C-alpha cells in the first residue's frame, strides 16, 4: 500500500544544502507494522514528515495505494515526537481533532472514544489543558487522537518515549490490541531496539545521515505473545543491536 522509491530530501542550513534522506526505498504491505530504527539525526522524523504530507518538497516517488500522499484524501494518523497538541484545546478536544477536521460526527463514535480514552487513562483528565498535563499524559492524548481517527495509515514518531517503564509496556500492549482489531498499516520510528522487536512485524534499519534504509528484517517473534517472558525475544534484541552497531559504525 505504501511505496517509496529513491526518496531524497534536502534542506538548507545557513545557505548550505544538506541531505536529510538520500535514495531511500521502502515498501509496506496493507496491514503491516514496520519499525524504523536508526541513529539520531539520520532523518527518521523527516521520513515521517514526508509520509504524513507535512513535507512536500522532496524528490523521488512516494505513493499510498498507488496515489500521491494527500492528507486531504487519505486518513493519515500522525503521532509526532512533540505530541502535536493544541495548547488551547482540552485533552478531549485534542483527542477528537482528527474527527473534527474530517468533519465527522463525534456522537456516532461515542462508545469507541470513551473506550480509548479510558484505556489510555485519559478519561478523568479529559477537560484539562495540555499545560496542566505531564509529558506522558500528553503523549497518550496524541496516541488517542490517532486511534480515534481510525486511520488508513498510522505514523508514529517515538510514540512511547515519554512514558514511564510500566505505563509504556501497558500502552504498547494496548497498541497491539487496537492494532489487531483494525490492522492499520503502521510505520513507527523508535530508538529502542526492544520496542522495535516487541511491536514491529518488520524492522527497517536506517543508515547514519543522510538516511536510507540499509536492511529490512522480518521479525520472527511478531505476534508470538508474552514476548517479555521469552528468551528468544532478548536474544533477538541482542542480535539486532549487534547488527545495527556494525551498520552504523561504517
Amino acid at each position, binding site marked *: 500500500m505504501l511505496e517509496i522509491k529513491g526518496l531524497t530530501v534536502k534542506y538548507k542550513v545557513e545557505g548550505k544544502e544538506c541531505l536529510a534522506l538520500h535514495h531511500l526505498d521502502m515498501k509496506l504491505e496493507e496491514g503491516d507494522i514496520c519499525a524504523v530504527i536508526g541513529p539520531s539525526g539520520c532523518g527518521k522524523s523527516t521520513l515521517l514528515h514526508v509520509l504524513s504530507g507535512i513535507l512536500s518538497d522532496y524528490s523521488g516517488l512516494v505513493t499510498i495505494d498507488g496515489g500521491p500522499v*494527500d492528507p486531504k484524501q487519505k486518513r493519515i494518523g500522525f503521532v509526532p515526537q512533540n505530541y502535536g497538541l493544541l495548547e488551547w484545546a482540552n485533552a478531549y478536544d485534542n483527542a477528537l481533532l482528527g474527527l*473534527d477536521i474530517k468533519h465527522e460526527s463525534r456522537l456516532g463514535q461515542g462508545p469507541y472514544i470513551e473506550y480509548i480514552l479510558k484505556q489510555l487513562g485519559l478519561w478523568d483528565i479529559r477537560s484539562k489543558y495540555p499545560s496542566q498535563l505531564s509529558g506522558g499524559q500528553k503523549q497518550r492524548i496524541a496516541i488517542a487522537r490517532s486511534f480515534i481517527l481510525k486511520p488508513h495509515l498510522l505514523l508514529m514518531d517515538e510514540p512511547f518515549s515519554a512514558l514511564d517503564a510500566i505505563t509504556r509496556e501497558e500502552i504498547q500492549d494496548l497498541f497491539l490490541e487496537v492494532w489487531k482489531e483494525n490492522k492499520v498499516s503502521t510505520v513507527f520510528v523508535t530508538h529502542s531496539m526492544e520496542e522495535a522487536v516487541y511491536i514491529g512485524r518488520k524492522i527497517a534499519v536506517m543508515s547514519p545521515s543522510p538516511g536510507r534504509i540499509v536492511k529490512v528484517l522480518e521479525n520472527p517473534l511478531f505476534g508470538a505473545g508474552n514476548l517479555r517472558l521469552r528468551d528468544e525475544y532478548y536474544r533477538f534484541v541482542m542480535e539486532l543491536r549487534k547488527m545495527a552497531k556494525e551498520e552504523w559504525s561504517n
Partner: protein
Amino acid sequence: MSRKNKITGYLAALIFLFAAWYGLSFLAQIPFLPSPAVVFVNIKKIFISDILVHLVYSLWRIAAGITASVLVGIPLGLCMGYYKTWDKLLSPVVYFTYPIPKIALIPLIMLIFGLGELSKIAMIFLIVVFQIIVSARDSGRAIPKETFYSLYSLGAGSLDIFRRVILPASLPGLLTSIRISLGTSLSVLFFTETFGTQYGMGYFIMDSWMRVNYIDMFSGILVLSVAGFLLFFLVDLLERLLCPWKP
C-alpha cells in the same frame, strides 16, 4: 499572586492615590486642586444630568474606532504573519506609515470626513489599526511551525488552520494589543474632542476648564479615568473568558 492578593494590592494602590491627592490639595489650598471629597460629591450631583451624555459619546467613539481597527487589523496582520507573500508586500508599507505621527493629520482628516463623528472615529482607527496589525502579524509569526503539523497531516484546509491554530494561538497577544490600543485611543479621543463637537469627555473637561469650574473639570478627569480603568478590566475579563487554557 493569588486573586485575593491582587485585589488587596489594587485596593491599597487606590487608597494610596486618593490619600496623596487629598494630602496635596490640603497642603496646597489652591482652587485648581480641589479635594477628592468635593469632587466625589460633585460627580454624584451632576453625573446623570451633565456628564453621562458626554461619557456615552466618548465610549461610542472608542468602541467604534477600536472595533473597526480590530476588524481590519487582525485579519490583515494574521495573514501577514502566516502568508510570506502578504508580509513581503505589506510590511514595507506598514513600516513607512507606522511612525508617521498621525495626530498631525487631523486637519486633513477633518477636511475629508468633516467635523462630525466620522473624523473622530477615523482618527482613532488610523492610529490604533497599525498597532493591531503589527502585533497580530508578530503573534502570527511567533507560532512554532510544529504546531501546524498535526493539522497538515490531517488534511486541514486554510479555514481550519486559521480557526483552530492561528486565531487561538495569537489571541493572548491580540488582547494585549487591544489593551495598549485602549490607552492610545483614550488620549487620541481627548484631543479630537476638543474641537468640532459639543459632546464627549474631552469637550466636557476642556469646557469646564474654560469656565474656570475646576471641580467640574476634575470630575470629568476622574470619570474618564475610571472609564479607562473599566475598559482595561473588561479586556482582562475577556481574556479570562476566551483563553481559559492560560495558566
